[in-house]
């Protein structure tokens, strides 16, 4: 392994946002900070007065916070899972997008993980979980699995970033102590590369099951109860598929934004979008398949309570949301992405945004209708989110944007060294790999 060439590296363009973030960066940060501060105030107000300031009530005891919890954690699957799968399958086109995906995961997980705490009526009693927690409760499984996933994905983000941090360190970018501290003495020696490679191989393998487990377990929060519409075995894979689906859409949106803002057309080529959007299309079909199976079994069984929820979604109060969801998650992506003519950047952007909205609606449709239709003859519940919930939702999104911006301010969002590595070695490696798939011309066919 050779040291990077002394000549100005063309990929160092990617460091521009770090070295010179520009004024608009600070404006946006200030705006976001204001929103986040206001969110903080709203949250403290909620803690002071109680959850009464939200729109939740009996029987709809869970609302936006749990919906957003599931939604954000779902988005987090963008990352690690995709980048790990792409890395594992040695898809070379992954190189410019893996980091973006991993960052989404780390930030969104932190936000999503906070939502159950926001949802608590007594956040001051959080410590009870440590003294008197019960591992039988799916909520504890969640705490464990989200902690594991958060640490794993942070590690998985951090380790491949070490060489890039070293580049920043070597270029003397401020704050130097930060890069010095984080680069862990990377010098790009062969030994170090080997260590890094091995660690990443282990992580790839570890991260995928953890990621799958996280969303499966989130689905268990619902599936472990006996409530109609929730008590379903399909929920685990259904949630995982949905999560990856929304994750890909999130990456696509981010890629398009970054491409535009940082002029990364050189790195994020149409081919990347093409591949990812095909993946999105596949997930859309898969999602539809799961949705179809889920509702068909419910419908066919015709259990009265199940049907009450079913009709509530199909033709009752939640029908507008339900059919919007189907349009956003299935029809629109199908139309836009299956046609080569509409599979352009704007087309992909529209499809991705619609998927994000659709997936949020899906969480809404899973959480609220089951609660709103209790089994006993109670009146149907109503849920109208209050301004507090909307503010906290906005705050969550703001934290995400701010987090991403801060990350992009200090670290390159596209892995410089991986691209270089790709340039230098992949072509050869891929050729070798492909030849190894092919039938060997020298060996004669075995007889018989």
């Amino acid at each position: 392994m050779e040291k990077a060439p002394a000549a100005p590296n063309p990929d160092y363009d990617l460091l521009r946002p770090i070295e010179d973030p520009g004024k608009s960066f600070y404006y946006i940060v200030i705006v976001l900070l204001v929103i986040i501060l206001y969110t903080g105030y709203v949250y403290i107000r909620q803690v002071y007065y109680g959850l009464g300031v939200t729109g939740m009530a009996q029987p709809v005891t869970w609302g936006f916070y749990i919906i957003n919890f599931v939604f954000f954690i779902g988005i987090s699957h963008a990352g690690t899972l995709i980048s790990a799968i792409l890395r594992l399958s040695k898809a070379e086109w992954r190189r410019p997008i893996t980091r973006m995906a991993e960052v989404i995961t780390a930030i969104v997980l932190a936000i999503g993980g906070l939502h159950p705490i926001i949802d608590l009526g007594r956040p001051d009693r959080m410590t009870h979980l440590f003294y008197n927690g019960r591992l039988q409760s799916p909520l504890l499984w969640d705490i464990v699995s989200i902690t594991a996933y958060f640490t794993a994905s942070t590690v998985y983000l951090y380790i491949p970033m070490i060489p890039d941090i070293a580049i920043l360190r070597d270029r003397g970018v401020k704050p130097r102590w930060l890069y010095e501290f984080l680069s862990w003495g990377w010098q790009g020696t062969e030994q170090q590369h080997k260590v890094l490679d091995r660690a990443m191989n282990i992580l790839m393998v570890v991260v995928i099951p953890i990621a799958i487990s996280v969303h499966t377990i989130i689905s268990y929060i619902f599936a472990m109860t006996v409530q109609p519409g929730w008590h379903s075995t399909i929920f685990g894979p259904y949630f995982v598929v949905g999560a990856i689906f929304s994750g890909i859409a999130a990456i696509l949106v981010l890629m398009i934004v970054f491409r535009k803002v940082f002029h990364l057309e050189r790195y994020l080529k149409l081919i990347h979008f093409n591949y990812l959007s095909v993946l999105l299309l596949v997930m859309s079909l898969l999602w539809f398949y799961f949705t179809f199976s889920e509702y068909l079994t419910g419908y066919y069984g015709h259990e009265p309570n199940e049907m009450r929820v079913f009709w509530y979604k199909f033709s009752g109060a939640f029908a507008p949301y339900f059919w919007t969801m189907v349009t956003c998650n299935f029809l629109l992506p199908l139309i836009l992405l299956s046609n080569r003519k509409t599979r352009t950047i704007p087309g992909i952007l529209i499809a991705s945004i619609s998927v994000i909205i659709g997936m949020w609606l899906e969480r809404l449709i899973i959480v609220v209708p089951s609660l709103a239709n209790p089994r006993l003859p109670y009146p149907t519940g109503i849920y109208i989110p209050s301004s507090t919930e909307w503010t906290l939702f906005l705050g969550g999104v703001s934290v995400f944007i701010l987090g991403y911006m801060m990350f992009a301010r200090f670290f390159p969002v596209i892995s410089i060294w991986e691209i270089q590595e790709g340039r230098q070695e992949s072509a050869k490696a891929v050729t070798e790999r492909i030849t190894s798939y092919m039938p060997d011309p020298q060996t004669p066919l075995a007889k018989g």
Partner: protein
Amino acid sequence: MNYKLIDRLQILSISLIWLLFTGIAVWILNLIKESLRLHDAPDASLGISLVAIPVFFTLSSVLTYVFIGLRKGRKKDVES
């Protein structure tokens, strides 16, 4: 820039990570103990801990492996 301080901090952060993961393990074990004491579904608790604890330790081991590996792999000349 104080390289020595940064070096110390790096070691500290790694040990903190170990501390965190050990803490999680201790917490889980504590919960198992509680559930055994109160006959409150200890089997479920045990099952979960069997999966969770190794995962955390794998993660911290990988981090430590990278940390030590990178230090070992450094060129001799920068060492001084």
